[in-house]
């Protein structure tokens, strides 16, 4: 998904911008097939559940999209989510009356702090992103255990108002989902219309050229890590709200792979410069829908993983094939 339009007519250009067509097709196939197999799938309640499920993923993947656009990666998001969840969770044990807004702010603040470590290491420490964030992946996870003494945060430790964020509102859509969508839309606009957003594309497309153009690449990269950390922190709080439990060994464990999967399946290039939040939303939606569909259709537990892998491969293949035959695109140059 590239933001820069190509030579063709506006209509063709619009279709090309929906490069995520392949993903949409894959998504549609999954939905239709599942709906036929299970009457419980295509219900309002179940779609709400899917949305709840992906909103955590989407929030973190939105930040990751920015990081990846600058030709970097943030593998520490799962650990950061866990660390923030545990830290704030334990704090809430002693302070049950804190307003929800403040709890969210604490999560964002703490996450930003964790993100800034990554940002400093990558932007100014010149540590390659994968090494820096593999390092903080381990370190933050270690801190989760240290912080919690290997104890988990239990439902009775968390304020009911926090947990209510994951419950349906009057409009039948939980706050968490609304929040996730708002964040995605904000990021979309930011990337398309703000100078910093464009600088992210430029930095990822050619870091050296960006530097020579006087784009403050280091600041830009730093900002993406701040955003990624802040959103992972927010997700840490929402994780506690959704599951009412924060376990040091499982909260956010391996989450980074899902997040990166949503981003790259959504078509953002891991070499930077190309991609969009729209793709990431579709990627997250696809992953969330597959997981839900497998659970709802009652496919044997033994088959779920293989089918999930198969669907992901099929989806990205369909996407790649459609893209190679898309109008005005020359496969050889892609």
């Amino acid at each position, binding site marked *: 998904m590239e933001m820069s339009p190509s030579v063709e007519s506006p209509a063709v250009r619009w279709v090309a911008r929906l490069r995520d067509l392949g993903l949409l097709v894959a998504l549609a196939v999954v939905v239709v097939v599942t709906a036929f197999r299970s009457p419980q799938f295509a219900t309002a309640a179940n779609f709400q559940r899917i949305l709840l499920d992906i909103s955590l993923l989407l929030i973190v993947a939105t930040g990751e999209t920015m990081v990846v656009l600058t030709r970097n990666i943030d593998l520490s998001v799962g650990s950061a989510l866990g660390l923030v969840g545990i830290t704030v969770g334990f704090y809430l044990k002693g302070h049950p009356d804190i307003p929800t807004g403040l709890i969210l702010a604490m999560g964002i603040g703490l996450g930003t702090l964790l993100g800034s470590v990554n940002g400093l290491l990558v932007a100014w420490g010149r540590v390659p992103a994968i090494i820096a964030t593999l390092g903080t992946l381990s370190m933050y996870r270690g801190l989760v255990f240290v912080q919690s003494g290997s104890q988990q945060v239990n439902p009775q430790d968390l304020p009911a108002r926090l947990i209510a964020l994951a419950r349906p509102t009057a409009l039948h859509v939980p706050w968490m989902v609304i929040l996730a969508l708002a964040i995605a839309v904000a990021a979309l606009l930011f990337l398309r219309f703000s100078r910093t957003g*464009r600088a992210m594309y430029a930095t990822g497309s050619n870091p050296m050229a960006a530097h020579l153009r006087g784009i403050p690449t280091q600041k830009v990269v730093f900002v993406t890590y701040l955003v990624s950390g802040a959103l992972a922190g927010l997700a840490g709080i929402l994780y506690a709200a959704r599951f009412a439990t924060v376990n040091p060994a499982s909260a956010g464990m391996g989450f980074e792979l899902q997040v990166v999967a949503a981003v790259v399946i959504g078509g953002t290039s891991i070499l930077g410069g190309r991609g969009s939040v729209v793709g990431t939303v579709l990627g997250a939606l696809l992953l969330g829908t597959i997981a839900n569909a497998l659970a709802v259709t009652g496919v044997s537990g033994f088959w779920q993983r293989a089918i999930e892998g198969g669907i992901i491969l099929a989806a990205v293949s369909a996407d790649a094939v459609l893209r190679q035959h898309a109008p005005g695109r020359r496969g050889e140059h892609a």
Partner: protein
Amino acid sequence: MTPLSVEAVLATRGLTKSFSGPPVVRDVDLDLRPGEVHALVGENGAGKSTFLRMLAGVHRQDRGQILLDGAPVEVSSPSVAQSYGLALISQEPMLFPDLSVAENIVAGEYPVARPVPWVRWGAMYLEAQELLESIGSNLDARQRVGGLSVAQQQMVEIATALARRARIVLMDEPTASLSPREVDRLFGIVRTLIKRGASVVFVNHRLEEVFTIANRITILRDGAKVGTFPTSEITRDEVVRRMVGRDLVWLYDKPPSQAGPVVLEVEHLTRRGVFHDVSFHVRRGEIVSLAGLVGAGRSEVARAIFGVDPPDRGTVRVDGQPVRMRSPREALQAGLAYLPEDRQHQGLVLPLSVAQNITLSILREVTRLGWLRTGAEEAIAGRLVERLQVKTDRVAQPVEQLSGGNQQKVLVGKYLVTHPKVLILDEPTRGVDIGAKAEIHRLMGELAQQGLGILMISSELPEVLAMADRILVLREGRLVKELSPDEATEETVMRAAVGALDGVPEGTCGAG
């Protein structure tokens, strides 16, 4: 040290820079007067690019001073240089392949709305398109930069520098892959810039261009300044002698060639929207040149023959045998070799050494049972480095550390060792200095005499006229004219390239 002249907008004193070995720019004093076009010339590796990069904040000098309007300044980064009103058009295009042409042009200085500063895309496209038109390019501002030809990228670079409204424009071989029409346009722009009060430093190996546009010439040799001369007070021969430090035969006089049987036959080659029904042949011992404007589709034809972008229709035969044009590998096996125009991306593996690059296409010859014979490899590389006068410490030096022209020589060397039946050369002497250019021409002549068929693409008309046994002119993807050396002059070729009618059509760029 030269005393400071009051009127210099930009001056350097004792500027020195070294990388790992001895200094590559040594104690250079230079004064740039307001409203002047100041040419900087020297052999490949003389230090011209390094000098400009110091001015633009890309490299920091080891020693010496940079003065703006007489006051010393620290140009510590490219953005500082920009804030001083300096803009660099670099030798290798430095662009964002994933972004549109327009964004490339304005990047960093987007038109924004008030009071909320969101990027106004419509205004941006409009501005960029106007700028492109003003330099005679009709590239689509909305097009992605990745996939543009080198010349087209160079046009984008030029537009970028113009968009900055810089006071001092540093141009590092901006014309290296431009054809005469684009060069004329560029000179028009330079004159406009000068009128607006800007000053220009201009690096170029094509001396005729230097003498057309420059007021003064500074000559560098091995990193040191030889002298600065008003253009009116020095001759070309004199410039060359001072550049090289000795007398030099710098023109290769190609003997007439003996054309043998047809070795390459191209029939009805078509790629929709790019080129149409292109048919021609090349005989053994013949040098055929493909001429045309930037974007006429010359490189595209060559790439199709070589199997890079397979054509929609048409056949290619080598020695009468059809070539399956599906990959360069098959083309190479059929006896074709293609020297691409984009040396940084398609030609060289920059981090690998000179020797490793030269043997990349002939690894079989330096391997025994899968084992690399580094000795043999270095011997082959050593011979070529000597022959082409590549300025390098050792054949084990990474190519990315060479100057642009020396990289080009390595690239030429890499294709000379492949022993093809047909050699396609796309801008083979881009950025190469006069001495080495003559050497490359001599090599081409020798290869032709050995019975190779050579297809040469060049934007430099004197080169085309000097080397070609036949000239094919391509315009907007169609072969419009074939000229023999007797008929060919700069004028006849250009007339065919822009269109027989003198109303020069404005749609010659971006065949797509």
